[in-house]
């Protein structure tokens, strides 16, 4: 059975785009990185939506790939270091025993596009619950 690692961390050269009002955070950072990843997917032929703000979670956007509804989150709270999550949010997908082939293929595309862009470095993939433990994989899919 194919095993997937749907979460990732990476370093990236993007300016800090957090917005503050009266010394408090109004918009958490990471919008520019979320938009850059959405652009990479657009170039790969997908149709991602605009990133939206999700408080301390950062920025999220949806996209479709071969009829699957997919979700991407970008979070950052350290200098030029980012966390990314993906999920197949198609109804009932959380009850599947194995990921759908289209979601697996999407992860391969996402990994390829990010690795091909020189602004991103040290991309490492994780099972979501392992991302706090720092023991990642070089690719998001394992046969």
């Amino acid at each position, binding site marked *: 059975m194919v095993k997937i690692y749907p*979460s990732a961390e990476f370093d990236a050269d993007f300016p800090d785009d957090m917005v503050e009002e009266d010394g408090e*955070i109004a918009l*958490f950072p990471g919008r520019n990185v979320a938009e850059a990843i959405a652009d990479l997917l657009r170039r790969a032929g997908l149709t991602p939506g605009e990133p939206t703000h999700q408080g*301390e979670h950062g920025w999220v956007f949806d996209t479709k790939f071969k009829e699957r509804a997919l979700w991407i989150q970008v*979070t950052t*709270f*350290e200098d030029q270091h980012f*966390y990314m999550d993906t999920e197949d949010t*198609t109804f009932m997908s959380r009850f599947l025993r194995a990921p759908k082939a289209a979601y697996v293929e999407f992860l391969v595309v996402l990994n390829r596009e990010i690795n091909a862009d020189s602004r991103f470095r040290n991309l490492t993939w994780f099972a979501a619950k392992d991302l706090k433990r720092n023991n990642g994989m070089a690719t998001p899919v394992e046969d």
Partner: protein
Amino acid sequence: MVAGNAAGVNRGAVHMAEDLAFLNRLADPSDRFESPPGTSAGAQLADAGKALVDYGGSVWANPHRVFDDLQSGANKVYAGLVPSATPTADTFAGEVGRMYGIGKNQGELAANIASLPAGGEALGPLRTLRGASQLRKATRYLDEAGHLDAVAYLEKPYRTTGPAKGRGKGDHAVLKERDRLPKILGGGPWPRSILDSPFNRVQFKGLTQGQAYALHAMIDDRSYGARLPNNLSVKGWSARKAGIDTQTGFDRAWNRTPEATKTLMGSLVGGAVGTTGEALDGDESW
């Protein structure tokens, strides 16, 4: 801790003792001979059975009644336990009384639930959160590194930012914002009223900023930390650096269950053993 919690725990213990005494009386063959007419445990059980049969008959005649009653009961329980569910009193003394009543209810419910794993024999220390020691270490690594300004910021009461501002941010426990409706219903996001229902959202009320971030990281696979304001000496708070990991098993299930759901479950369990729905002590709590 809300004023009245301790009194509620005491009352929960008294009610549990009364329940146990009731069961003992039921098992005692001499109870029906020694009790005044109509007050033996057997007679009370028979009355309860008759009331149940009568209720069953009225539900048969009006099936919708059961839904009305369930909703009414759930609303009453919610209002009795959650301070924000009822309006604040006009006077200071009135508000103290309201919070004391709610605190008593919370204490009694917590006592009932806390005693269940021990078979009702023990009233352990109250712990509304499982793994609370993780919350206490949320800011320790910043403290040790000398980022005292960040520690002070994280010890302030939690406040919401961004799209959740004013709604009371929390963790969507069952349905996530990212979950999509079935294709037959359009495949879009779930309605806000369902997502933000008290039965779907763990709220961080009463926690400090640091505790809220730590709890979020403990119960949400996809929460790793949070950025801090620019005027502090460190850029962000990190669950990994704080040594906080995603919970598993019962701790995770407990902490991810919204208070309203716990309340309803506790009420159903308590009702099943006769600890709720009884005449109150003459005050506004139940």
